[in-house]
């Protein structure tokens, strides 16, 4: 199956995502420049991490108006699996494909470190190969990952099981000390109402091989490959 990795000016994890899909998972992968208007028959779309448009104005605020975002939005609305990683998550929020917004990290520091997240839901195309409650060790690298939504929106996300990843300690305990950025309810990742659009701040694509310090991120890629092969998610192409 084919992974489309969207490249914005300032994306810097596009090659990591390509490497994970192509060389670690052995799938077809191609880059799609942000000025393209189609996804060229992709089965999965990844919005990679980086600093699109220099993070000017707000993270993701300019990128969401890139021509390719109409195709991404159509793909998502048709049920296609979309994964937004870090800046890709921020772009999904700005585009309204996921609810909420990012604030500066509560300590105003850029955090570049490994953290632990707990898989809260195993019924999304990107987590179906992971068991609920599994703890993943993944790197983060962001200054604006402090997830915020109005209390009513957060309550709705929680009630409908749309919090997919939560920052936790190595034992899976969700504590304030394990929250690197101040995100409400330790939220590290969420999904759309139809569950096919997932965004998270940690970088699974940088943690797919043990030589990189962790292979825990691989399960997200294995999940979507399995989900598509099993017909669990819509193939829109």
């Amino acid at each position, binding site marked *: 199956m084919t992974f489309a990795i969207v490249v914005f000016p300032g994306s810097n994890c596009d090659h990591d995502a390509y490497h994970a899909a192509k060389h670690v998972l052995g799938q077809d992968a191609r880059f799609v420049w942000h000025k393209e208007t189609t996804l060229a028959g992709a089965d999965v779309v990844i919005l990679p991490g980086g600093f699109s448009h220099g993070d000017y*104005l*707000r993270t993701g*605020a300019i990128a969401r*108006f890139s021509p390719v975002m109409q195709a991404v939005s159509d793909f998502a609305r048709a049920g296609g699996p979309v994964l937004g990683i870090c800046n890709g998550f921020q772009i999904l*929020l*700005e585009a309204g494909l996921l*609810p*909420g*917004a990012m*604030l*500066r*990290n*509560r*300590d*105003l520091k850029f955090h570049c470190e490994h953290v632990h997240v707990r898989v809260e839901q195993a019924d999304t195309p990107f987590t179906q190969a992971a068991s609920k409650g599994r703890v993943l060790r993944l790197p983060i690298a962001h200054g604006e990952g*402090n997830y*915020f*939504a*109005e209390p009513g929106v957060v309550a709705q996300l929680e009630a409908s099981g749309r919090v997919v990843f939560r920052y936790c300690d190595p034992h899976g305990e969700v504590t304030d000390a394990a929250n690197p950025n*101040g995100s409400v309810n330790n939220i590290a990742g969420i999904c759309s109402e139809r569950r096919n659009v997932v965004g998270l701040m940690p970088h699974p694509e940088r943690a797919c091989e043990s030589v990189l310090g962790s292979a825990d991120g691989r399960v997200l890629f294995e999940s979507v490959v399995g989900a598509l092969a099993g017909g669990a998610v819509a193939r829109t192409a």
Partner: protein
Amino acid sequence: MAIRARVYVTLKPSVFDPQGHTIADALHSMGYAGIGDVRQGKYFELEIDAGTPDSARALAAEVADRLLANPVIESYRVEIAP
């Protein structure tokens, strides 16, 4: 005619502003005990080709809604320069 609009974007009162908080802390450590809360925002100057100040104001509000402010966390105010 060219009309200058000013757009002020600020975090909503319900949203914690870590930058404003840090600035307030710095001011307090500098001895400015009389300064309470500080909120940091953004300021934009737009030069708009519009027939009337009202149409310039409407256009400034439209671009603030669509791009300059994120309605999830921010609100904005438009002023037309005299």
